């Protein structure tokens, strides 16, 4: 059995304010808000936190130092791993490894971004040095970033497997139905119909607007510690059963062996084996959905279905509330929030589902959750398996 299986737990989770926070609110403020809420959720005192793991989507180069100072923390361990949208999941792995090595006892993982209110999101991505590999061999061609790489994957997927727009639309509609149950979701009050999906304009074909996530503000935080220590805090511990990550590139999609064979092909089996869990045991799925093609490729590469079957599988309604495969139960990046990166929100929701605290969004009897996140356009991926005690 994997030595770290179920030895560490998530004891506190929280979101910051989400949506459009307005011009006066900084990303630090959202990180602070999420962090303080997560500590309160756990009943962890600030002076217990000795490991700080932070990311944002801004240009702040030392977010761990800044957050620790503002919160009044004195951590022994700091980490600002930046591998795109899965950064917080890779940081969770690093936190477990650090705790296992005795380098910290209580880890705070936090994220916050005001990319919506600050207007910093650009269709072409952040400016690239024209001497860099992307500056020389990608930027001159006008590929949107990160929308473009996922559009490329979708065109190839549709060509190889004949997937229909209605399949991807079905996933968008099912996901919206979860948002319609979530009062903090951006599209809480807006259902989505198939005709609205099909009529939404192409942004980078074949990706339509309704295939693409929101651009919002928001943040989240989780608190980790050893399972034995976890029992003293406010909630039943949610155990980290297994995880795995991969790093393969820096947006350079042409360099991938096969665009549709994603990192989940490696991280899924390893994470599940470490967790001692099978795919059939998973009760609730939280899979990064910045674009509808992402959960589709994830379920195929995780081994849930054969290559080419994922769009039909996820598009047939089973992922919606009441269905057999609850997926993205917040409403996901497509309809709940998406402040630049989404990894932390997968964990916050998975923990809440396993605590049984999701109210009308609760997946009854949820015992095993699987989180999967992407980073930097197929460049990095992470799978995380959580279980109740």
């Amino acid at each position, binding site marked *: 059995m994997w030595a770290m299986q179920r030895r560490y737990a998530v004891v506190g989770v929280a979101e910051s304010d989400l949506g459009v926070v307005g011009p006066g609110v900084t990303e630090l403020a959202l990180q602070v808000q999420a962090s303080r809420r997560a500590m309160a959720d756990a009943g962890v005192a600030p002076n217990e936190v000795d490991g700080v793991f932070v990311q944002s989507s801004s240009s702040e180069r030392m977010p761990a130092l800044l957050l620790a100072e503002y919160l009044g923390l004195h951590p022994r361990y700091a980490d600002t791993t930046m591998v795109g949208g899965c950064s917080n999941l890779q940081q969770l792995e690093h936190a477990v490894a650090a705790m296992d090595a005795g380098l910290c006892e209580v880890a705070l993982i936090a994220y916050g971004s005001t990319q919506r209110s600050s207007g910093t999101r650009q*269709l072409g991505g952040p400016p690239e*040095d*024209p*001497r860099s*590999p992307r500056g020389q061999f*990608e930027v*001159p*061609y006008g590929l949107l970033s990160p929308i473009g790489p996922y559009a490329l994957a979708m065109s190839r997927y549709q060509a190889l497997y004949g997937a229909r727009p209605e399949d991807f639309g079905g996933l968008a509609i099912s996901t919206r139905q979860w948002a319609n149950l979530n009062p903090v979701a951006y599209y809480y009050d807006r259902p989505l119909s198939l005709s609205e999906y099909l009529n939404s304009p192409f942004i980078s*074909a074949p990706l339509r607007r309704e295939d693409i996530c929101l651009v919002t503000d928001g943040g989240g935080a989780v608190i980790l510690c050893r399972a034995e220590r976890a029992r003293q805090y406010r909630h039943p511990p949610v155990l980290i059963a297994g995880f795995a990550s991969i790093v393969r590139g820096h947006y350079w999609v*042409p360099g991938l062996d096969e665009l549709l064979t994603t990192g989940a092909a490696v991280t899924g089996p390893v994470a599940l084996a470490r967790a001692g869990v099978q795919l059939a045991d998973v009760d609730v799925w939280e899979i990064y959905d910045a674009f509808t093609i992402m959960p589709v490729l994830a379920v195929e590469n995780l081994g849930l279905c054969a290559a080419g079957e994922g769009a039909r599988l996820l598009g047939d309604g089973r992922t919606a509330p009441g269905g057999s495969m609850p997926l993205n139960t917040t409403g996901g990046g497509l309809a709940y929030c998406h402040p630049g990166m989404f990894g932390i929100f997968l964990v916050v929701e998975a923990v809440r589902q396993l605590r049984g605290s999701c109210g009308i969004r609760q997946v009854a009897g949820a015992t095993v959750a699987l989180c999967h996140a992407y980073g930097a356009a197929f460049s990095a991926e992470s799978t995380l398996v959580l279980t109740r005690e």
Partner: protein
Amino acid sequence: MQAERPAPEPTPQTSAFWEACRQGTLLLEFCPTCQAYQFYPRGFCSRCGGESVEWRPSGGRGTVYAWTVTWRAPSPAWEVPYVVAVIQLDEGPRLYANVIGEDAVDVAVGDPVVLTWEKRGATISLPQFRRVRTSKLGDEGTSLSGDRGGD
């Protein structure tokens, strides 16, 4: 004033590549140990780490591995719609390019394409690709070298 599309800036590792582009040739690095081409050029083999990579000219032919039609311009320099593709060269490696020409937006995965060039700024000739069309007489679209015009 029309905004300019971004231009690459050559580095010591890529100056030979871009100079060859100006002469109408697409160079690829070839590793004699791995017996394989690689792109983008970086002065050593990214598979084996070896430094004996050598430049070889590409035949300028390939197929469309994946495509996207951009409908929202990232800056005023771009006129939509335009096609960005991952091109699979016959030699093996893949690269980004625009598919240009009046039939570009009908591009499909697997389409054969042929190299062409687009002048970008004062000093750069950018590799681009056109879809290969066969006429009733069987001749193909565009010559692969010496065609420095762009759309």
